[in-house]
Protein backbone atom coordinates (compact mmCIF):
# COMPACT_ATOMS: atom_id res chain seq x y z
CA UNK A 1 0.00 0.00 0.00
CA UNK A 2 1.96 2.98 -1.24
CA UNK A 3 0.67 6.40 -0.57
CA UNK A 4 1.65 9.61 -2.28
CA UNK A 5 3.19 12.33 -0.15
CA UNK A 6 0.09 14.44 -0.52
CA UNK A 7 -2.06 11.68 0.87
CA UNK A 8 0.28 11.03 3.77
CA UNK A 9 0.72 14.60 4.88
CA UNK A 10 -2.35 16.49 3.73
CA UNK A 11 -3.88 16.70 7.20
CA UNK A 12 -0.63 18.14 8.57
CA UNK A 13 -0.58 20.57 5.68
CA UNK A 14 -4.18 21.50 6.45
CA UNK A 15 -3.14 22.33 10.00
CA UNK A 16 -0.21 24.40 8.76
CA UNK A 17 -2.41 26.32 6.36
CA UNK A 18 -4.84 27.02 9.20
CA UNK A 19 -1.96 28.25 11.38
CA UNK A 20 -0.66 30.52 8.63
CA UNK A 21 -4.08 31.94 7.84
CA UNK A 22 -4.72 32.50 11.53
CA UNK A 23 -1.49 34.38 12.05
CA UNK A 24 -2.22 36.52 9.01
CA UNK A 25 -5.75 37.48 9.98
CA UNK A 26 -5.03 37.98 13.67
CA UNK A 27 -1.77 39.38 15.03
CA UNK A 28 -2.80 38.20 18.47
CA UNK A 29 -2.79 34.56 17.40
CA UNK A 30 0.97 34.03 17.61
CA UNK A 31 1.45 35.68 20.98
CA UNK A 32 3.16 33.19 23.34
CA UNK A 33 0.39 33.42 25.93
CA UNK A 34 -2.19 32.62 23.28
CA UNK A 35 -0.25 29.59 22.06
CA UNK A 36 0.06 28.49 25.69
CA UNK A 37 -3.69 28.90 26.16
CA UNK A 38 -4.52 26.90 23.05
CA UNK A 39 -2.22 23.96 23.78
CA UNK A 40 -3.56 23.87 27.32
CA UNK A 41 -7.22 23.89 26.45
CA UNK A 42 -7.02 21.18 23.77
CA UNK A 43 -5.26 18.75 26.10
CA UNK A 44 -8.22 17.13 27.86
CA UNK A 45 -10.12 16.71 24.61
CA UNK A 46 -6.95 15.44 22.93
CA UNK A 47 -6.41 12.77 25.57
CA UNK A 48 -10.01 11.57 25.22
CA UNK A 49 -9.67 11.60 21.45
CA UNK A 50 -6.54 9.43 21.65
CA UNK A 51 -8.53 6.83 23.58
CA UNK A 52 -11.22 7.15 20.93
CA UNK A 53 -8.56 6.61 18.24
CA UNK A 54 -7.80 3.09 19.50
CA UNK A 55 -11.52 2.32 19.51
CA UNK A 56 -12.19 3.72 16.03
CA UNK A 57 -9.07 2.10 14.54
CA UNK A 58 -10.40 -1.25 15.72
CA UNK A 59 -13.67 -0.58 13.93
CA UNK A 60 -15.65 0.32 17.06
CA UNK A 61 -17.09 3.46 18.65
CA UNK A 62 -17.22 4.71 22.25
CA UNK A 63 -20.09 7.06 23.09
CA UNK A 64 -19.58 6.81 26.84
CA UNK A 65 -16.41 8.94 27.07
CA UNK A 66 -18.12 12.16 28.21
CA UNK A 67 -20.01 10.37 30.98
CA UNK A 68 -16.92 8.45 32.07
CA UNK A 69 -15.05 11.76 32.27
CA UNK A 70 -17.76 13.15 34.57
CA UNK A 71 -17.88 9.98 36.70
CA UNK A 72 -14.11 9.94 37.20
CA UNK A 73 -14.08 13.63 38.08
CA UNK A 74 -16.77 13.01 40.69
CA UNK A 75 -15.13 9.81 42.00
CA UNK A 76 -11.84 11.61 42.58
CA UNK A 77 -13.36 14.75 44.10
CA UNK A 78 -15.76 12.66 46.17
CA UNK A 79 -12.97 10.47 47.54
CA UNK A 80 -11.35 13.63 48.88
CA UNK A 81 -14.47 15.45 50.01
CA UNK A 82 -16.60 12.60 51.38
CA UNK A 83 -13.97 10.08 52.47
CA UNK A 84 -10.98 12.35 53.19
CA UNK A 85 -8.57 10.13 51.26
CA UNK A 86 -5.12 11.38 50.20
CA UNK A 87 -5.06 13.11 46.81
CA UNK A 88 -2.89 10.47 45.15
CA UNK A 89 -5.26 7.69 46.21
CA UNK A 90 -8.25 9.74 45.04
CA UNK A 91 -6.65 10.21 41.63
CA UNK A 92 -6.00 6.47 41.46
CA UNK A 93 -9.65 5.80 42.29
CA UNK A 94 -10.73 8.13 39.48
CA UNK A 95 -8.42 6.40 36.99
CA UNK A 96 -9.49 2.92 38.08
CA UNK A 97 -13.14 3.98 37.90
CA UNK A 98 -12.67 5.20 34.34
CA UNK A 99 -10.86 2.02 33.37
CA UNK A 100 -13.58 -0.06 35.01
CA UNK A 101 -16.36 1.59 33.00
CA UNK A 102 -14.32 1.02 29.83
CA UNK A 103 -13.78 -2.59 30.89
CA UNK A 104 -17.55 -3.00 31.26
CA UNK A 105 -18.00 -1.67 27.71
CA UNK A 106 -15.49 -4.23 26.47
CA UNK A 107 -17.07 -7.13 28.35
CA UNK A 108 -20.58 -6.37 27.09
CA UNK A 109 -19.33 -5.98 23.52
CA UNK A 110 -17.29 -9.21 23.47
CA UNK A 111 -19.01 -11.60 25.87
CA UNK A 112 -22.47 -10.19 25.24
CA UNK A 113 -21.82 -10.00 21.48
CA UNK A 114 -23.54 -6.63 21.23
CA UNK A 115 -22.87 -3.66 18.95
CA UNK A 116 -20.36 -1.15 20.36
CA UNK A 117 -22.73 1.69 19.45
CA UNK A 118 -25.56 0.24 21.55
CA UNK A 119 -23.41 -0.84 24.49
CA UNK A 120 -21.54 2.46 24.81
CA UNK A 121 -24.75 4.43 24.32
CA UNK A 122 -26.28 2.50 27.22
CA UNK A 123 -23.19 3.04 29.37
CA UNK A 124 -23.28 6.73 28.44
CA UNK A 125 -26.60 7.14 30.26
CA UNK A 126 -25.92 4.69 33.07
CA UNK A 127 -22.53 6.12 33.96
CA UNK A 128 -23.93 9.66 33.86
CA UNK A 129 -26.70 8.47 36.17
CA UNK A 130 -24.09 6.97 38.48
CA UNK A 131 -22.25 10.30 38.60
CA UNK A 132 -25.43 12.15 39.54
CA UNK A 133 -26.32 9.52 42.12
CA UNK A 134 -22.85 9.57 43.66
CA UNK A 135 -22.84 13.37 44.00
CA UNK A 136 -26.55 13.57 44.81
CA UNK A 137 -26.82 16.03 41.93
CA UNK A 138 -24.78 18.63 43.79
CA UNK A 139 -21.45 19.93 42.51
CA UNK A 140 -18.49 18.94 44.68
CA UNK A 141 -16.25 21.86 45.52
CA UNK A 142 -12.77 21.27 46.88
CA UNK A 143 -10.76 24.01 48.54
CA UNK A 144 -7.99 24.65 45.95
CA UNK A 145 -5.30 25.22 48.59
CA UNK A 146 -6.02 21.79 50.08
CA UNK A 147 -5.59 19.85 46.83
CA UNK A 148 -2.47 21.38 45.25
CA UNK A 149 -1.58 18.26 43.23
CA UNK A 150 -5.01 18.13 41.63
CA UNK A 151 -5.05 21.86 40.87
CA UNK A 152 -1.59 21.62 39.38
CA UNK A 153 -2.76 18.89 37.00
CA UNK A 154 -5.28 21.28 35.52
CA UNK A 155 -3.89 24.77 35.97
CA UNK A 156 -0.16 24.29 36.59
CA UNK A 157 2.61 25.38 34.27
CA UNK A 158 6.02 23.74 34.24
CA UNK A 159 8.73 26.37 34.49
CA UNK A 160 5.98 28.95 34.00
CA UNK A 161 5.98 27.88 30.38
CA UNK A 162 4.58 24.47 29.51
CA UNK A 163 1.08 23.80 30.91
CA UNK A 164 1.00 20.54 32.92
CA UNK A 165 -2.05 19.50 30.92
CA UNK A 166 -0.08 19.78 27.70
CA UNK A 167 2.80 17.75 29.10
CA UNK A 168 0.37 14.97 30.04
CA UNK A 169 -1.18 15.18 26.57
CA UNK A 170 2.24 14.85 24.93
CA UNK A 171 3.16 11.89 27.15
CA UNK A 172 -0.14 10.13 26.45
CA UNK A 173 0.32 10.74 22.71
CA UNK A 174 3.89 9.37 22.76
CA UNK A 175 3.01 6.25 24.73
CA UNK A 176 -0.01 5.60 22.52
CA UNK A 177 2.09 6.08 19.40
CA UNK A 178 4.60 3.52 20.64
CA UNK A 179 1.79 1.12 21.59
CA UNK A 180 0.23 1.37 18.15
CA UNK A 181 3.40 1.28 16.06
CA UNK A 182 5.75 -1.04 17.86
CA UNK A 183 3.75 -3.62 19.79
CA UNK A 184 1.74 -6.62 18.74
CA UNK A 185 -1.24 -5.03 20.56
CA UNK A 186 -1.01 -2.11 18.14
CA UNK A 187 -0.89 -4.43 15.13
CA UNK A 188 -4.01 -6.24 16.36
CA UNK A 189 -5.83 -2.90 16.80
CA UNK A 190 -5.22 -2.04 13.15
CA UNK A 191 -5.93 -5.62 12.16
CA UNK A 192 -9.34 -5.65 13.87
CA UNK A 193 -10.37 -2.58 11.91
CA UNK A 194 -9.09 -4.02 8.65
CA UNK A 195 -10.21 -7.62 8.82
CA UNK A 196 -11.35 -8.98 12.15
CA UNK A 197 -11.77 -12.54 10.87
CA UNK A 198 -8.19 -12.68 9.63
CA UNK A 199 -6.89 -11.58 13.02
CA UNK A 200 -9.03 -14.18 14.75
CA UNK A 201 -7.88 -16.94 12.40
CA UNK A 202 -4.25 -16.10 13.05
CA UNK A 203 -4.82 -17.24 16.62
CA UNK A 204 -5.13 -13.89 18.37
CA UNK A 205 -7.45 -13.63 21.37
CA UNK A 206 -9.64 -10.99 19.74
CA UNK A 207 -11.90 -10.65 22.77
CA UNK A 208 -9.04 -9.77 25.06
CA UNK A 209 -7.69 -7.17 22.65
CA UNK A 210 -11.13 -5.53 22.39
CA UNK A 211 -11.63 -5.43 26.14
CA UNK A 212 -8.19 -3.83 26.46
CA UNK A 213 -9.06 -1.21 23.83
CA UNK A 214 -12.25 -0.09 25.59
CA UNK A 215 -10.56 -0.21 29.00
CA UNK A 216 -7.85 2.08 27.65
CA UNK A 217 -10.46 4.48 26.28
CA UNK A 218 -12.18 4.55 29.68
CA UNK A 219 -8.88 5.07 31.47
CA UNK A 220 -7.97 8.05 29.28
CA UNK A 221 -11.42 9.63 29.68
CA UNK A 222 -11.01 9.18 33.43
CA UNK A 223 -7.65 10.94 33.26
CA UNK A 224 -9.33 13.78 31.37
CA UNK A 225 -11.97 14.06 34.07
CA UNK A 226 -9.40 14.30 36.84
CA UNK A 227 -7.53 17.01 34.95
CA UNK A 228 -10.79 18.86 34.47
CA UNK A 229 -11.35 19.02 38.24
CA UNK A 230 -7.98 20.75 38.45
CA UNK A 231 -8.71 23.02 35.51
CA UNK A 232 -11.99 24.08 37.09
CA UNK A 233 -10.24 25.01 40.31
CA UNK A 234 -11.42 22.06 42.38
CA UNK A 235 -14.99 21.74 41.15
CA UNK A 236 -16.45 18.41 40.05
CA UNK A 237 -19.90 18.15 38.59
CA UNK A 238 -21.91 15.23 37.28
CA UNK A 239 -22.78 17.33 34.23
CA UNK A 240 -19.17 17.58 33.08
CA UNK A 241 -18.36 16.56 29.51
CA UNK A 242 -21.88 16.68 28.06
CA UNK A 243 -21.58 16.17 24.31
CA UNK A 244 -17.84 15.50 24.50
CA UNK A 245 -18.21 12.12 22.78
CA UNK A 246 -19.07 13.88 19.54
CA UNK A 247 -16.20 16.35 19.87
CA UNK A 248 -13.79 13.48 20.51
CA UNK A 249 -15.04 11.59 17.46
CA UNK A 250 -14.73 14.81 15.42
CA UNK A 251 -11.08 15.24 16.50
CA UNK A 252 -10.32 11.68 15.36
CA UNK A 253 -12.15 11.93 12.05
CA UNK A 254 -10.90 15.41 11.10
CA UNK A 255 -7.40 14.08 11.72
CA UNK A 256 -8.02 11.62 8.92
CA UNK A 257 -8.66 8.38 10.79
CA UNK A 258 -11.35 6.44 8.98
CA UNK A 259 -14.57 5.72 10.88
CA UNK A 260 -14.52 2.32 9.18
CA UNK A 261 -11.34 1.47 11.11
CA UNK A 262 -7.94 0.23 10.09
CA UNK A 263 -6.37 3.46 8.83
CA UNK A 264 -5.15 6.49 10.72
CA UNK A 265 -3.29 6.93 13.97
CA UNK A 266 -2.41 8.98 17.02
CA UNK A 267 -0.56 11.62 14.99
CA UNK A 268 -3.70 12.22 12.95
CA UNK A 269 -5.76 12.68 16.10
CA UNK A 270 -3.31 15.15 17.61
CA UNK A 271 -3.53 17.16 14.41
CA UNK A 272 -7.33 16.92 14.33
CA UNK A 273 -7.52 18.11 17.94
CA UNK A 274 -5.26 21.06 17.19
CA UNK A 275 -7.32 22.00 14.13
CA UNK A 276 -10.50 22.19 16.20
CA UNK A 277 -8.76 24.03 19.06
CA UNK A 278 -7.18 26.61 16.76
CA UNK A 279 -10.43 27.10 14.89
CA UNK A 280 -12.30 27.89 18.13
CA UNK A 281 -9.49 30.21 19.19
CA UNK A 282 -9.27 32.20 15.96
CA UNK A 283 -13.04 32.61 15.70
CA UNK A 284 -13.01 34.08 19.22
CA UNK A 285 -10.03 36.31 18.49
CA UNK A 286 -11.77 37.73 15.45
CA UNK A 287 -14.87 38.35 17.57
CA UNK A 288 -17.08 36.29 15.26
CA UNK A 289 -20.64 36.15 16.60
CA UNK A 290 -21.71 32.96 18.29
CA UNK A 291 -24.33 31.81 15.78
CA UNK A 292 -21.99 32.54 12.88
CA UNK A 293 -19.25 30.55 14.66
CA UNK A 294 -21.43 27.45 14.73
CA UNK A 295 -22.08 27.69 10.99
CA UNK A 296 -18.45 28.28 10.09
CA UNK A 297 -17.27 25.43 12.31
CA UNK A 298 -19.61 22.98 10.61
CA UNK A 299 -18.63 24.16 7.15
CA UNK A 300 -14.93 23.79 7.87
CA UNK A 301 -15.40 20.27 9.21
CA UNK A 302 -17.20 19.27 6.01
CA UNK A 303 -14.45 20.90 3.96
CA UNK A 304 -11.65 19.20 5.92
CA UNK A 305 -13.18 15.76 5.68
CA UNK A 306 -13.92 16.26 1.97
CA UNK A 307 -10.32 17.19 1.23
CA UNK A 308 -8.98 14.15 3.06
CA UNK A 309 -11.46 11.84 1.30
CA UNK A 310 -11.00 13.07 -2.26
CA UNK A 311 -8.16 10.84 -3.34
CA UNK A 312 -9.62 7.61 -2.11
Amino acid at each position, binding site marked *: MKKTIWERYRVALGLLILIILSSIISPDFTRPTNIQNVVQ*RVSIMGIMAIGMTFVILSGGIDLSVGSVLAASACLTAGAIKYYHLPIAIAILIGLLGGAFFGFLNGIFITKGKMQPFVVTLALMTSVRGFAFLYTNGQPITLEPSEVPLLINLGLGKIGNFLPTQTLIFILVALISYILLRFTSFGRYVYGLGGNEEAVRLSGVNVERVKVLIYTLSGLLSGLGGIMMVGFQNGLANANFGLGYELSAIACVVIGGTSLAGGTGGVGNTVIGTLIIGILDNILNLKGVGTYMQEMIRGAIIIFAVYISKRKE
Partner: protein
Amino acid sequence: MKGKTIVWVIVIVVVLVALFYAFRGRGERRATGPLVSGGKISAPKKKKWLIGFSQSTMIDPWRINMLKQMQDAVKEHEDEIDFIYTDAKNDNNKQIADVQDLVTRGIDLLIISPREAEPLTPVVSEVYKKGIPVITLDRNITTSDYTCFIGASNLEIGRKAGERMVKELGGKGVVVEIEGILGATPTIERSKGFHEVVDKYKGIKVVLKRPADYLREPARKIMEDALQAYKKIDGVYAHNDEMALGALAAAKAVGRDKGLVIIGIDGQKEAFTAIMRGEMTATYIYPNGSKEAIETALKILKGEKVPKHITLPTVEVTKENVNQYYNPNAYF
Protein backbone atom coordinates in the same frame (compact mmCIF):
# COMPACT_ATOMS: atom_id res chain seq x y z
CA MET B 1 13.09 9.13 0.40
CA LYS B 2 13.11 11.87 -2.19
CA GLY B 3 9.42 12.47 -1.51
CA LYS B 4 10.09 13.03 2.16
CA THR B 5 12.72 15.67 1.41
CA ILE B 6 10.22 17.61 -0.67
CA VAL B 7 7.72 17.52 2.15
CA TRP B 8 10.27 18.80 4.61
CA VAL B 9 11.22 21.64 2.29
CA ILE B 10 7.55 22.58 2.02
CA VAL B 11 7.13 22.40 5.78
CA ILE B 12 10.15 24.59 6.46
CA VAL B 13 9.13 27.19 3.87
CA VAL B 14 5.64 27.28 5.28
CA VAL B 15 6.89 27.71 8.85
CA LEU B 16 9.17 30.55 7.76
CA VAL B 17 6.30 32.27 5.98
CA ALA B 18 4.15 31.80 9.07
CA LEU B 19 6.80 33.31 11.32
CA PHE B 20 7.29 36.21 8.92
CA TYR B 21 3.61 37.04 8.99
CA ALA B 22 3.43 36.51 12.70
CA PHE B 23 6.16 39.03 13.41
CA ARG B 24 4.88 41.46 10.83
CA GLY B 25 1.57 41.39 12.61
CA ARG B 26 3.14 42.04 15.98
CA GLY B 27 5.15 44.91 14.57
CA GLU B 28 2.00 46.61 13.43
CA ARG B 29 0.40 46.12 16.75
CA ARG B 30 3.29 47.58 18.68
CA ALA B 31 3.63 50.62 16.44
CA THR B 32 2.81 53.72 18.41
CA GLY B 33 2.40 57.32 17.40
CA PRO B 34 1.17 58.59 14.05
CA LEU B 35 1.99 56.33 11.11
CA VAL B 36 4.02 57.89 8.34
CA SER B 37 2.90 56.90 4.87
CA GLY B 38 4.04 58.51 1.63
CA GLY B 39 5.59 61.48 3.43
CA LYS B 40 2.24 62.42 4.89
CA ILE B 41 1.29 62.00 8.50
CA SER B 42 -2.00 60.19 8.72
CA ALA B 43 -4.56 61.66 11.03
CA PRO B 44 -4.23 60.24 14.55
CA LYS B 45 -7.15 57.95 15.20
CA LYS B 46 -9.29 58.68 18.19
CA LYS B 47 -8.68 56.02 20.79
CA LYS B 48 -11.61 53.74 21.39
CA TRP B 49 -11.87 51.39 24.33
CA LEU B 50 -12.43 47.72 23.63
CA ILE B 51 -14.90 46.05 25.98
CA GLY B 52 -15.13 42.26 25.99
CA PHE B 53 -18.17 40.43 27.30
CA SER B 54 -18.04 36.75 28.22
CA GLN B 55 -21.58 35.35 28.27
CA SER B 56 -22.10 31.96 29.91
CA THR B 57 -24.75 30.70 27.50
CA MET B 58 -27.05 31.96 24.80
CA ILE B 59 -29.73 29.32 24.85
CA ASP B 60 -32.07 30.98 27.29
CA PRO B 61 -34.02 34.07 26.24
CA TRP B 62 -33.10 36.06 29.33
CA ARG B 63 -29.40 35.82 28.44
CA ILE B 64 -29.96 36.48 24.74
CA ASN B 65 -31.85 39.59 25.79
CA MET B 66 -29.00 40.56 28.11
CA LEU B 67 -26.63 40.59 25.16
CA LYS B 68 -29.06 42.42 22.86
CA GLN B 69 -29.69 45.18 25.38
CA MET B 70 -25.96 45.43 26.00
CA GLN B 71 -25.36 45.85 22.28
CA ASP B 72 -28.04 48.57 22.27
CA ALA B 73 -26.29 50.33 25.15
CA VAL B 74 -22.98 50.07 23.26
CA LYS B 75 -24.57 51.74 20.22
CA GLU B 76 -25.32 54.81 22.33
CA HIS B 77 -21.60 55.18 22.98
CA GLU B 78 -20.33 54.04 19.59
CA ASP B 79 -17.74 56.80 19.37
CA GLU B 80 -16.13 55.72 22.63
CA ILE B 81 -16.23 51.93 22.70
CA ASP B 82 -15.81 48.85 20.57
CA PHE B 83 -17.51 45.70 21.78
CA ILE B 84 -16.90 41.99 21.34
CA TYR B 85 -18.56 39.07 23.05
CA THR B 86 -18.15 35.33 23.42
CA ASP B 87 -20.63 32.55 24.22
CA ALA B 88 -19.43 29.76 26.52
CA LYS B 89 -22.27 27.43 25.54
CA ASN B 90 -22.95 26.44 29.16
CA ASP B 91 -19.46 24.95 29.51
CA ASN B 92 -17.05 26.18 32.21
CA ASN B 93 -14.02 25.07 30.21
CA LYS B 94 -15.18 27.04 27.20
CA GLN B 95 -15.76 30.13 29.31
CA ILE B 96 -12.23 29.95 30.74
CA ALA B 97 -10.94 29.75 27.16
CA ASP B 98 -13.19 32.64 26.11
CA VAL B 99 -11.85 34.92 28.82
CA GLN B 100 -8.27 34.08 27.82
CA ASP B 101 -9.10 34.82 24.18
CA LEU B 102 -10.70 38.15 25.05
CA VAL B 103 -7.57 39.14 26.96
CA THR B 104 -5.40 38.03 24.02
CA ARG B 105 -7.58 40.23 21.85
CA GLY B 106 -6.43 43.17 23.99
CA ILE B 107 -9.62 44.21 25.79
CA ASP B 108 -9.49 47.26 28.08
CA LEU B 109 -12.27 45.97 30.32
CA LEU B 110 -13.92 42.61 30.91
CA ILE B 111 -17.61 42.09 31.60
CA ILE B 112 -18.35 38.52 32.61
CA SER B 113 -21.41 36.63 33.66
CA PRO B 114 -19.74 33.49 35.03
CA ARG B 115 -21.50 30.17 34.52
CA GLU B 116 -20.27 28.90 37.89
CA ALA B 117 -18.22 30.71 40.51
CA GLU B 118 -15.35 28.35 41.44
CA PRO B 119 -14.04 27.34 38.00
CA LEU B 120 -14.03 30.89 36.66
CA THR B 121 -12.38 32.46 39.70
CA PRO B 122 -8.70 31.75 38.80
CA VAL B 123 -8.91 33.11 35.27
CA VAL B 124 -10.91 36.20 36.27
CA SER B 125 -8.45 36.84 39.13
CA GLU B 126 -5.60 36.62 36.66
CA VAL B 127 -7.25 39.18 34.39
CA TYR B 128 -7.91 41.54 37.30
CA LYS B 129 -4.33 41.24 38.55
CA LYS B 130 -3.07 42.16 35.08
CA GLY B 131 -4.72 45.53 35.66
CA ILE B 132 -7.73 44.96 33.41
CA PRO B 133 -10.91 46.11 35.22
CA VAL B 134 -13.55 43.40 35.64
CA ILE B 135 -17.31 43.78 35.98
CA THR B 136 -19.06 40.61 37.13
CA LEU B 137 -22.64 40.58 36.00
CA ASP B 138 -25.51 38.66 37.61
CA ARG B 139 -23.24 35.96 39.02
CA ASN B 140 -20.07 36.58 40.98
CA ILE B 141 -16.72 34.87 41.57
CA THR B 142 -15.54 33.57 44.95
CA THR B 143 -12.75 36.10 45.64
CA SER B 144 -12.81 39.90 45.60
CA ASP B 145 -10.65 40.16 42.46
CA TYR B 146 -13.16 42.21 40.49
CA THR B 147 -13.86 45.90 40.14
CA CYS B 148 -17.63 45.89 40.40
CA PHE B 149 -20.44 43.35 40.75
CA ILE B 150 -23.79 44.22 39.24
CA GLY B 151 -26.81 42.08 40.01
CA ALA B 152 -30.19 41.97 41.61
CA SER B 153 -30.73 40.44 45.03
CA ASN B 154 -31.96 36.93 44.41
CA LEU B 155 -32.38 36.39 48.11
CA GLU B 156 -34.86 39.28 48.27
CA ILE B 157 -36.76 37.97 45.22
CA GLY B 158 -36.94 34.53 46.80
CA ARG B 159 -38.40 36.02 49.98
CA LYS B 160 -40.98 38.03 48.06
CA ALA B 161 -41.97 34.93 46.08
CA GLY B 162 -42.33 33.05 49.35
CA GLU B 163 -44.57 35.73 50.82
CA ARG B 164 -46.71 35.74 47.68
CA MET B 165 -47.03 31.94 47.78
CA VAL B 166 -48.11 31.98 51.46
CA LYS B 167 -50.66 34.71 50.75
CA GLU B 168 -52.15 33.03 47.67
CA LEU B 169 -52.43 29.64 49.36
CA GLY B 170 -53.70 31.03 52.64
CA GLY B 171 -50.82 29.39 54.48
CA LYS B 172 -51.77 25.85 53.46
CA GLY B 173 -50.97 23.71 50.44
CA VAL B 174 -48.72 21.37 48.44
CA VAL B 175 -45.93 23.11 46.53
CA VAL B 176 -43.50 21.99 43.81
CA GLU B 177 -40.23 23.89 43.50
CA ILE B 178 -38.42 23.82 40.14
CA GLU B 179 -34.83 24.90 40.55
CA GLY B 180 -32.32 26.40 38.13
CA ILE B 181 -28.76 25.16 37.63
CA LEU B 182 -27.63 23.41 40.81
CA GLY B 183 -24.77 25.15 42.54
CA ALA B 184 -25.22 28.46 40.69
CA THR B 185 -25.58 31.45 43.02
CA PRO B 186 -29.03 32.58 41.75
CA THR B 187 -30.39 29.06 42.25
CA ILE B 188 -29.08 28.83 45.78
CA GLU B 189 -30.35 32.29 46.74
CA ARG B 190 -33.73 32.06 45.03
CA SER B 191 -34.32 28.83 46.91
CA LYS B 192 -32.96 30.07 50.22
CA GLY B 193 -35.06 33.25 50.27
CA PHE B 194 -38.20 31.31 49.40
CA HIS B 195 -37.66 28.72 52.12
CA GLU B 196 -36.85 31.38 54.71
CA VAL B 197 -40.48 32.42 54.39
CA VAL B 198 -42.49 29.30 53.53
CA ASP B 199 -40.73 26.99 55.98
CA LYS B 200 -42.25 29.03 58.80
CA TYR B 201 -45.69 27.80 57.75
CA LYS B 202 -46.36 24.19 58.78
CA GLY B 203 -49.33 23.98 56.40
CA ILE B 204 -47.17 24.53 53.31
CA LYS B 205 -45.34 21.44 52.14
CA VAL B 206 -42.69 21.63 49.41
CA VAL B 207 -43.06 18.03 48.27
CA LEU B 208 -40.71 18.13 45.30
CA LYS B 209 -37.58 20.14 44.57
CA ARG B 210 -35.87 19.41 41.25
CA PRO B 211 -33.46 21.28 38.98
CA ALA B 212 -34.42 22.03 35.36
CA ASP B 213 -31.41 24.23 34.51
CA TYR B 214 -33.61 27.28 33.80
CA LEU B 215 -34.97 25.54 30.70
CA ARG B 216 -38.58 25.03 29.72
CA GLU B 217 -38.67 21.45 28.48
CA PRO B 218 -36.95 19.82 31.47
CA ALA B 219 -39.30 21.81 33.75
CA ARG B 220 -42.29 20.52 31.83
CA LYS B 221 -41.11 16.94 32.33
CA ILE B 222 -40.58 17.47 36.05
CA MET B 223 -44.08 18.90 36.37
CA GLU B 224 -45.59 16.06 34.33
CA ASP B 225 -44.01 13.58 36.71
CA ALA B 226 -45.10 15.60 39.73
CA LEU B 227 -48.70 15.65 38.49
CA GLN B 228 -48.52 11.87 38.17
CA ALA B 229 -47.06 11.40 41.63
CA TYR B 230 -49.20 13.87 43.60
CA LYS B 231 -52.98 13.96 43.40
CA LYS B 232 -53.09 17.51 44.67
CA ILE B 233 -50.66 20.28 43.82
CA ASP B 234 -51.58 23.81 44.86
CA GLY B 235 -48.54 25.83 43.94
CA VAL B 236 -45.46 25.88 41.73
CA TYR B 237 -42.45 28.00 42.44
CA ALA B 238 -40.08 28.08 39.47
CA HIS B 239 -36.72 29.86 39.60
CA ASN B 240 -37.45 31.50 36.25
CA ASP B 241 -40.35 32.17 33.89
CA GLU B 242 -39.19 29.69 31.25
CA MET B 243 -39.58 26.88 33.77
CA ALA B 244 -42.82 28.35 35.14
CA LEU B 245 -44.21 28.30 31.60
CA GLY B 246 -43.03 24.71 31.19
CA ALA B 247 -44.85 23.74 34.38
CA LEU B 248 -47.95 25.60 33.18
CA ALA B 249 -47.92 23.67 29.90
CA ALA B 250 -47.72 20.38 31.78
CA ALA B 251 -50.62 21.32 34.09
CA LYS B 252 -52.73 22.53 31.16
CA ALA B 253 -52.16 19.29 29.27
CA VAL B 254 -53.88 17.30 32.01
CA GLY B 255 -56.43 20.00 32.87
CA ARG B 256 -55.03 20.75 36.30
CA ASP B 257 -54.09 24.40 35.76
CA LYS B 258 -57.26 25.86 37.27
CA GLY B 259 -56.55 27.42 40.64
CA LEU B 260 -52.91 26.42 40.47
CA VAL B 261 -50.64 29.14 41.82
CA ILE B 262 -47.62 29.52 39.52
CA ILE B 263 -44.85 31.91 40.45
CA GLY B 264 -41.89 32.61 38.20
CA ILE B 265 -38.97 35.04 38.11
CA ASP B 266 -37.43 37.25 35.37
CA GLY B 267 -40.36 39.17 33.88
CA GLN B 268 -40.44 37.57 30.47
CA LYS B 269 -42.98 38.86 27.94
CA GLU B 270 -44.65 35.46 27.67
CA ALA B 271 -45.01 35.33 31.44
CA PHE B 272 -46.72 38.73 31.41
CA THR B 273 -49.20 37.41 28.87
CA ALA B 274 -49.83 34.36 31.04
CA ILE B 275 -50.43 36.62 34.05
CA MET B 276 -52.91 38.71 32.03
CA ARG B 277 -54.79 35.52 31.14
CA GLY B 278 -54.76 34.50 34.80
CA GLU B 279 -52.68 31.38 34.07
CA MET B 280 -49.69 32.53 36.08
CA THR B 281 -49.90 34.27 39.43
CA ALA B 282 -46.80 36.44 39.67
CA THR B 283 -43.34 37.07 38.37
CA TYR B 284 -40.48 39.28 39.51
CA ILE B 285 -38.69 41.46 37.01
CA TYR B 286 -35.13 40.38 37.29
CA PRO B 287 -33.08 43.08 35.59
CA ASN B 288 -30.15 41.80 33.55
CA GLY B 289 -28.04 44.85 34.30
CA SER B 290 -26.61 45.08 30.79
CA LYS B 291 -27.22 48.83 30.42
CA GLU B 292 -25.80 49.47 33.88
CA ALA B 293 -22.79 47.32 33.00
CA ILE B 294 -21.90 49.42 29.95
CA GLU B 295 -22.44 52.68 31.85
CA THR B 296 -20.35 51.47 34.78
CA ALA B 297 -17.69 50.25 32.35
CA LEU B 298 -17.42 53.73 30.84
CA LYS B 299 -17.10 55.29 34.29
CA ILE B 300 -14.32 52.87 35.20
CA LEU B 301 -12.47 53.49 31.92
CA LYS B 302 -12.72 57.25 32.45
CA GLY B 303 -11.18 56.82 35.88
CA GLU B 304 -14.28 57.58 37.89
CA LYS B 305 -14.92 55.75 41.13
CA VAL B 306 -17.64 53.10 41.20
CA PRO B 307 -19.08 51.11 44.11
CA LYS B 308 -17.93 47.50 44.54
CA HIS B 309 -21.53 46.25 44.53
CA ILE B 310 -24.45 47.61 42.57
CA THR B 311 -27.77 46.02 43.52
CA LEU B 312 -30.48 46.40 40.92
CA PRO B 313 -34.08 46.97 42.06
CA THR B 314 -36.77 44.38 41.35
CA VAL B 315 -40.53 44.69 40.90
CA GLU B 316 -43.29 42.21 41.64
CA VAL B 317 -45.66 41.83 38.71
CA THR B 318 -49.17 40.43 39.27
CA LYS B 319 -52.52 40.77 37.55
CA GLU B 320 -52.97 44.20 39.16
CA ASN B 321 -49.95 45.91 37.64
CA VAL B 322 -49.00 43.74 34.65
CA ASN B 323 -50.32 46.25 32.11
CA GLN B 324 -47.75 48.82 33.22
CA TYR B 325 -44.86 46.53 32.42
CA TYR B 326 -46.03 44.66 29.35
CA ASN B 327 -44.23 45.90 26.27
CA PRO B 328 -45.28 44.16 23.05
CA ASN B 329 -42.06 45.26 21.34
CA ALA B 330 -39.67 43.88 23.96
CA TYR B 331 -37.19 41.24 22.80
CA PHE B 332 -37.77 39.23 25.89
